[in-house]
């Protein structure tokens, strides 16, 4: 009895693949709550891809099913992923803004025969949890390592590191430290501050007292970056010549209107700037702006989602719409294409995206808006984090 029941369920799930001509993709992300903006960007990236490339692969229609996990909540994430796989019969899982949410899903993949395409979650180790995980976003290690070289090249040899005290912050601190020390610099002090810090003045005082020539900072994009950058200006660090280095989370495009003048000149390294100058990106920004409604809300998760969709489309092409997770993942190993962010490829070993990391500087455009201006390119960067974790 039990066995037949299971078989029936399995058949039900499979049937979606074999006979119907609609292929479902389940996308889990923060669509409401404090990170709603990032979820909105997921949707914008996906919509943009489908607007440009059509909502069909071969004969199969593509349908996206969204599920909301407002804040990191692995139990909810797993429950929703399970529901998507078992009830909705999705062939692909995608999205995932937070690392624990993605981690919770990895044990399901093999049994469910479903690949997981991560469109944001940035902790290196996720790809090691299952061979069916592919990531099209970035890791904190990947975006934070090049800035160390930038700092050293700018003639700064003593840096204080200031990060939010949680997983990605610690990753950023380690990545920067490794890179900076390898380049011959010295991290004089490493401060970890609580995520829920509203007033950064005391931190700025610490930075001043440390005697460092530059500060490396990591905070999650959103409201706190505003306070941090403003405090950096108002407490006289900027005018005092202490240079500011950070990965691009700090100056995501959707925060720039609020940061405004205070952010001018801040140098960050990141995998994507909305201002990236290429025909692919022009097309993407146009489509994504239309999808999101307000172009000022466009930010980096959209590109992870856009390229994630590209990978999934390739997977569907390779499998001809059949549900075969391993075949699908194998098909995109080594896949290279020109993304709106520049040339990228999926590393066959780690299944993580190899991409250019750009050094950008916040600049003011002629129309008075602020943007990340790309000034230098670090080509074909892999994820140094995996090696460091091992």
């Amino acid at each position: 009895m039990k066995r037949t029941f299971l078989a029936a369920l399995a058949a039900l799930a499979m049937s979606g693949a074999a006979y119907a001509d609609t292929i479902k993709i389940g996308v889990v992300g923060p669509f409401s709550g404090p990170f709603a903006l990032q979820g909105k960007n997921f949707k914008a990236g996906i919509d943009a891809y489908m607007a440009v490339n059509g909502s069909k692969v071969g004969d199969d229609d593509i349908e996206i099913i969204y599920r909301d996990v407002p804040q990191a909540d692995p139990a909810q994430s797993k429950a929703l992923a399970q529901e998507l796989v078992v009830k909705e019969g999705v062939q692909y899982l995608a999205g995932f803004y937070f690392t624990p949410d993605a981690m919770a899903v990895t044990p399901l993949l093999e049994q469910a025969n479903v690949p997981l395409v991560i469109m944001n979650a940035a902790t290196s180790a996720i790809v090691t949890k299952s061979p069916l995980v592919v990531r099209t976003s970035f890791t904190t290690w990947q975006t934070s390592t090049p800035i160390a070289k930038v700092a050293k090249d700018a003639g700064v040899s003593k840096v204080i590191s200031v990060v939010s005290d949680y997983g990605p912050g610690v990753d950023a601190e380690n990545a920067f430290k490794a890179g900076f020390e390898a380049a011959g610099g010295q991290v004089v002090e490493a401060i970890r501050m609580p995520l829920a810090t509203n007033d950064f003045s005391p931190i700025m005082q610490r930075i001043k007292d440390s005697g460092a020539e530059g500060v490396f900072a990591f905070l999650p994009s959103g409201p706190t970056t505003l306070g941090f950058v403003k405090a950096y200006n108002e407490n006289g660090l900027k005018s005092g010549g202490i240079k500011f280095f950070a990965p691009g989370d700090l100056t995501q495009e959707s925060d720039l209107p609020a940061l405004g003048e205070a952010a001018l000149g801040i140098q960050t390294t990141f995998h994507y700037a909305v201002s990236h100058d290429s025909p692919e990106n022009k097309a993407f920004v146009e489509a994504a702006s239309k999808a999101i409604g307000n172009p000022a809300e466009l930010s980096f998760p959209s590109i992870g989602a856009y390229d994630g969709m590209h990978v999934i489309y390739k997977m569907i092409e390779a499998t001809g719409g059949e549900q075969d997770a391993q075949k699908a993942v194998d098909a995109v190993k080594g896949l290279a294409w020109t993304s709106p962010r520049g040339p990228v490829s999926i590393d066959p070993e780690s299944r993580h995206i190899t991409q250019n990391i750009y050094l950008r500087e916040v600049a003011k455009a002629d129309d008075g808006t602020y943007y990340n201006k790309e000034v230098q390119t670090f080509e074909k960067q892999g994820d140094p984090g995996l090696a460091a974790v091992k």
Partner: protein
Amino acid sequence: MSMTTTNDLIAERPAKHRFGGGDLIGLGVILALAVIGYFLFPNNLALLTRIIAIALLVLSLDLVTGYCGVATLGHAALFGAGAYAAGIVSAHYGINDPIAMLAFGIVAGAIAGLICGAVILRAHGLPQLVLSIALIHLFHEFANKASSWTGGSDGLSGIAPSALIGLYEFDLWGRTAYVFGVVLLVLVFFILRLIVRSPFGMLCRAIKEDPIRIRSMGASPKAALMKMYIISGAVAGVGGALNAISTQVVGLDSLSFTMSAESLVMLVLGGTGSLFGALTGTIVFMFFEDVVSAANPFHWLTMVGALLIAVVLFAPKGLFGTAAAFVARRREAK
């Protein structure tokens, strides 16, 4: 003389006190719901399991808030302690037997209950609420700091529960986890029904109404509340362990203010001071949230807000509390 008196008294007992009657109905309802859930949502067992885990947390909260009148916005500390304990023994010490993990969860929950009780019971009313908020933040921050043990904000992964009693693997469909959860919920519910009717349960209800009067009867309210806090911790620990076993990842959210506040909302929604109220509140809230957030993942929060407002306006004693009062009135009117 004395014998007849006793018999008379037992015969006179009001219906609601008749031993076992209410319990059997309650257990029957839970089991019926569990079976209906299984067949109605065979594809959604993970959600149902999650509801069960949260229901255990809300039941645990009801013990201290509903039965003892303690105001707390930090109850997830007990739940999270259970979840992390069960997760850590599996991920770091290779203790993968679900029953053993559960036992660790219960003990950790009870210890967390002891700690929280010792702090929270030092004040009343609003300051008490703030003590609980401070505690949950301390727990959360501690788990974040101890990332070599807890995985910090990346979550504790690598939890691999072995087959339940050596026979039933935890599978993709979540059937084992679901059945395990239902069994735990039924057991806990049954035990709690006994406890709330026991002399100790009666003592706690009395403390909720007037702790000073209880002192003049020679009982220590503080000692009783501490005891209830430990029991509550054990119950929350069951929920946390179930969560860790079924999800196989424990995140900081299980120790968060958000989860504490949500569990309080669910409890008040269903009706405090009644185990059925706690269950009703959890089921209604989580199903409602699941349905509206699937229907519109972007703007469902407004709908949940409207639900809460509507409940306060039209069912001020909570869904179950108001329904029970309505039935009681009807019965009296007859």
